[in-house]
């Protein structure tokens, strides 16, 4: 990798990135320590990640082990509860705590996986549209407009109805239907970057399109990309839970918080804990992601902060 030095004659006028990146990171971390909600968000997200990673150690039972004798047991601290089942059991006698612990894996994998897929599709289409322009741009943006006319959940329902549920299907379906916002943001950024001097000079000295896109354009789009992803992870986690709640998302043996809620809904009159705890898990996780995402936005895109006060 040839990073142009200050003395290098005829070097490409690439904006000096490395040093400013390190400084930016330090500054960002300092800002994180100062921002209360940012800290809360970071701590929540860290805890959820740790729970997901160490699920086998934290779970007290096999999340799918059925125990008819122990069905609908209340949480340990209530009358009739047992210390075996911290948060009680569901209608099949499965341990709710262990299921919540394993459910965190699904939430994170789908949340992050789907955002990566949609980000990748959006970035490729956005860069292609802006860089090549004319009819390529027209076709891609028309496609994006048409997708916006259909509510995403509707599109997902249709696709899942045909393809059938499952974790990997879900990642690709959510990913493939949510790329429009990425494509638009990336396209907008590339359109303005294309006219900047450092890109023009790179083209002038004969750099190939691929090199210009990967070396000069993509690194500069990164911050808007990360800001958008932060927000999207939160909506994706809720989306996965919603689809699983409707019976179209995650299927056994994988455990989803949304699916747990759907099981608990029928027993809400007699056993409130079955639906209450998974819902709390979703809310707390999403809250953490939103707080962390807002902090990321403030650090990476100060203009947005000004706008939102």
């Amino acid at each position, binding site marked *: 990798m040839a990073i142009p030095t200050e003395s290098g004659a005829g070097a490409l006028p690439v904006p000096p990135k490395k040093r400013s990146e390190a400084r930016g990171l330090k500054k960002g971390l300092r800002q994180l320590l100062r921002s209360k909600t940012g800290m809360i968000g970071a701590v929540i997200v860290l805890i959820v990640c740790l729970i997901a990673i160490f699920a086998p150690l934290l779970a007290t039972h096999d999340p799918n082990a059925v125990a008819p004798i122990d069905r609908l047991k209340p949480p340990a601290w209530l009358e009739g509860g047992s210390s075996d089942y911290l948060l009680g059991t569901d209608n099949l006698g499965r341990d709710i705590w262990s299921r919540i612990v394993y459910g965190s894996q699904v939430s994170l994998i789908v949340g992050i996986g789907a955002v990566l897929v949609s980000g990748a599709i959006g970035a490729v289409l956005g860069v292609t549209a802006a860089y090549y322009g004319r009819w390529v741009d027209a076709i891609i943006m028309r496609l994006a407009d048409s997708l916006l006319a259909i*509510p995403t959940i*509707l599109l997902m329902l*249709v696709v*899942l109805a045909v393809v059938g549920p499952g974790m990997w299907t879900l990642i690709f379906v959510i990913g493939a239907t949510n790329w429009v916002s990425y494509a638009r943001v990336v396209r907008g950024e590339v359109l303005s970057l294309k006219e900047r001097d450092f890109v023009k000079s790179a083209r002038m000295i004969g750099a190939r399109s691929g090199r210009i896109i990967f070396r000069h354009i993509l690194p500069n789009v990164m911050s808007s990309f990360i800001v958008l992803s932060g927000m999207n992870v939160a909506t994706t986690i809720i989306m996965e839970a*919603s689809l699983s*709640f409707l019976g179209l998302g995650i299927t056994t043996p994988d455990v989803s918080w949304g699916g747990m809620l759907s099981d608990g809904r029928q027993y*809400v009159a007699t056993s*409130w804990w079955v*639906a209450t705890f998974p819902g709390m898990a979703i*809310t707390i996780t999403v809250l953490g992601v939103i707080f962390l995402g807002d902090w990321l936005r403030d650090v990476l895109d100060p203009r947005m902060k000004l706008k939102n006060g």
Partner: protein
Amino acid sequence: MGKYLVKSLLQMIPVLLLISLIVFVLVRVTGDPVALMLPESATEADRATLTRELGLDLPLYQQYGIFLTNAIQGDFGTSFRYGESALPLVLERLPASFELAFAAMALAVVIAIPLGIWSAVKRNTFIDIFISGISVLGKAMPNFWMGIMLILLFSVMLGWFPVSGRGGLTHLILPAITLGVSLAAQMTRLIRSNMLEILNQDYIRTARSKGIFELFVIGKHAFRNGLIPVVTIMSLQFTSLIGGTLITETVFAWPGLGQLLVSAVNTHDMAIVQAAVFVIAIFVILMNILTDLVYRLLDPRIKYS
């Protein structure tokens, strides 16, 4: 105005064509309607007959042509679950969904406008932080969970409202709150940031310096201009409203289009799925055109630019 309307309506055509293509490809190419419609005991000859009857032995482009011609005439096939034509089944569910969506949107506006303005006026005070906190919480809470918790509290424990179904006002309250609160959460944040922008403008400062009563400054000068973004926000929320309606209807067994669609997806009743997707898509597009028109009415400057 007329010219604009014609142009927008014409622009619907490519979008609808694309949607029809997506639905056609998904349903015809990946699924096997014959296997879905016949019992497992059906013989090979039965399958061949049905394949021919449904026109599935024709080339794909011809199948798409037939599908499109039928769709234009409102014929999406027969629902195998209800044994009736799909489109009327979908249309008869619309009033229930409209009722819920309208109640939720009205509730959201009633909650969000005062909270958003208050939050902006009291910027960075305890009230602002409190309102922002609540709206973030409203955004983080999945609305199906909130629905279940409302049922637990108000139906099971207090016995104030029925658990599910559609009937009088008592049936409407919990589903409308469930759907309305999540919309209000988003709306409050957007109204706040719009109001902040407006409150910083010169004409507001002028109004204040003239000694006009503060409530009047905010109510008449600031809010009237703040109304335009509210219309945009409402149109932007339209898609989340549809998504939310799907889920809320399922939670409360509300007999609307969403519930019909979700159960059709679960039972692979493709005729209903197709009809519902088309009806919703047409509706979304019409709503977008309508918002644009309201926009022009509210801000006459747009017309001349």
